């Protein structure tokens, strides 16, 4: 079966530093693939390459078997890859509705912003994700971390993402909000969305992921089924960069 998303021999360097050095990964429909590694292991760079924010220096990206090249984040999003950045990438001065549609505003026949239609689409979506989310007309800077996360995740739902990249989605969230995000990830996965989950948090990895990939110094240490390994083995992969015997693919 063709993978939903495949990265082949991806390379990226910044001024002589090989941030991503020959990494290959694949992601199936509805799969949650955890991407692990120390800070500076290259995971965020790899995710930004997939998201179109950094061009590939070498290697290729395939979507449903077709090679794709993204010149900008807009290209990647148009192809159905939605990214939730660690810092959430929200315009703090705009309200949640404007942020949901940022860069993809609905417009009237005259080409003007269709605020009424955007609000009408956004409010029920936010309510579905978090019933307590009422202050949708306030600037997002005044929202809680969980509500901000809802705005970011809502983008993936509104625009029917096929691949979702989440960078530390539960960092800085309280227990209830973390549970809500976990629930959303499972729901999206059940709907067939492929999810790349970048995280440092072991409970997240074991609660959510089907497989995990570990990176160190820009290279892939190994990929394995989450059910086949325990936390110690994963930590050993991250810290020592050694794949345990059980790891095959």
């Amino acid at each position: 079966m063709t993978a939903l998303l495949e990265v082949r021999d991806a390379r990226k360097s910044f001024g002589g530093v090989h941030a991503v050095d020959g990494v290959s990964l694949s992601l199936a429909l509805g799969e949650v693939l955890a991407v692990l590694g120390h800070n500076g292991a290259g995971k965020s760079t790899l995710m930004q390459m997939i998201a179109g924010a950094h061009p590939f220096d070498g290697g290729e990206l395939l979507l449903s078997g077709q090679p794709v090249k993204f010149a900008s984040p807009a290209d990647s999003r148009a192809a159905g890859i939605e990214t939730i950045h660690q810092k959430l990438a929200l315009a703090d001065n705009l309200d949640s509705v404007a942020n949901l549609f940022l860069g993809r505003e609905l417009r009237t026949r005259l080409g003007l912003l269709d605020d009424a239609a955007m609000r009408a689409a956004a409010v029920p979506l936010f309510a579905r994700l978090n019933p307590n989310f009422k202050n949708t007309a306030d600037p997002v800077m005044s929202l809680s971390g969980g509500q901000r996360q809802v705005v970011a995740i809502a983008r993936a739902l509104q625009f029917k993402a096929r691949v979702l990249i989440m960078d530390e989605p539960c960092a800085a969230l309280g227990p209830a909000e973390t549970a809500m995000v976990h629930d959303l990830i499972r729901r999206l996965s059940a709907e067939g969305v492929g999810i790349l989950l970048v995280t440092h948090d072991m409970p997240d990895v074991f609660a959510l992921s089907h497989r995990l990939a570990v990176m160190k110094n820009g290279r892939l240490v190994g990929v394995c089924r989450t059910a086949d390994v325990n936390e110690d083995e994963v930590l050993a992969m991250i810290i020592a960069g050694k794949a345990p015997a059980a790891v095959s693919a």
Partner: protein
Amino acid sequence: MSEQSKRLAVMAAALVAIALGFHALTGSFLTAENLSNLVQQTAVVGIVASGMALIIVARQIDLAVGSLLGAVGVLMAWLQYTQGWSVPASLAAGLGFALAIGLFQGALSAIVGLPSFVVTLGGLVSLRGAAFLIADGKTQPISEPWLLALGGGMDGALGERGSWIVGVALVALCVGWQVVQRRAQSRAGLEARAMSREALQAVLTAVAVLGAVAVFNAYRIEGQEQGQGLPLPLLVWGVVVLGLSFVAKHTRFGRYVYAIGGNPEAARLAGIPVRRVLIQLNLLLAALVALAAVVAMARLNAGTNSMGTGMELTVIAAAVIGGVSLSGGSGSVAGTVLGALIIQSIDSGLLLTDVSIGWRMVVLGQVLVAAVVFDRVVHK
């Protein structure tokens, strides 16, 4: 009430208090004649400030607007007076020159990545030099009557009948827009605002607009058969403000300007063409400067190389007093109207009370500081 409308209400109250204070001191501040002069004096700064607001919202700055106004003004007047060009051709050339400068400065900051402060600081100096070079420092008088009318004065107003027509049309436009908005909301299945609030807004709009028309119509120059009505510089300024407010609120371009100001990285990641928007914004401000140069030239009856000297600071001050945050992302076009009027009111009011130029400058500088302090206190 949103943060922004609260802010506008406070500024409007401050303006009213300033006007009442000066009226109590001079007895002549709140006369139709003085108010007419006041808005005519404010229009040039006001036109540029409305564009400056969006520049600052997008985390940019433009220090070259005063010098550009000088260079464009002299260029247009010189083409007419010394080179014998027709008025439309000279105005088009002035606009073309301004847009070329806007494109150059915009590209340097948006594409090359230089801070706009540095780029336009260079422009401030160079363009003032260009203003001198174009006509070799000589004043270039202009004579075309309809062009001079744009500067206001005795023949530069709409008259009573024309002013009522414009006033009624504006009220109709505002109320019509309310109806359009309401329809869009109900079509989208959103809860509409209470009818009483809509009615209140419509009535307030009508009272403000028609009240202003009545005031300007009440100003009659000796020997004239009827009142002056709306001065043309005010009309130009008003069209600019309404147009830009609309662009800021209801177009993608406006939304992107605010998004870039709020978080440039988020804007880029959301697929917003940040560089293109910033260049467009620079072109927009340059076009407004060219328009303001026409009005300034018409007011002076000439183009001179010193036109617009120091204006960049008044314009930025008007934007800041009007609620534009220098750190970007917040502020409104409408606020700059109040900001510009507050500065001009204080300046003219102090002049009427015989305060020396030195003290006027001392006070105006601290008014700017006070406005920012006030902002900080309110936001804490």
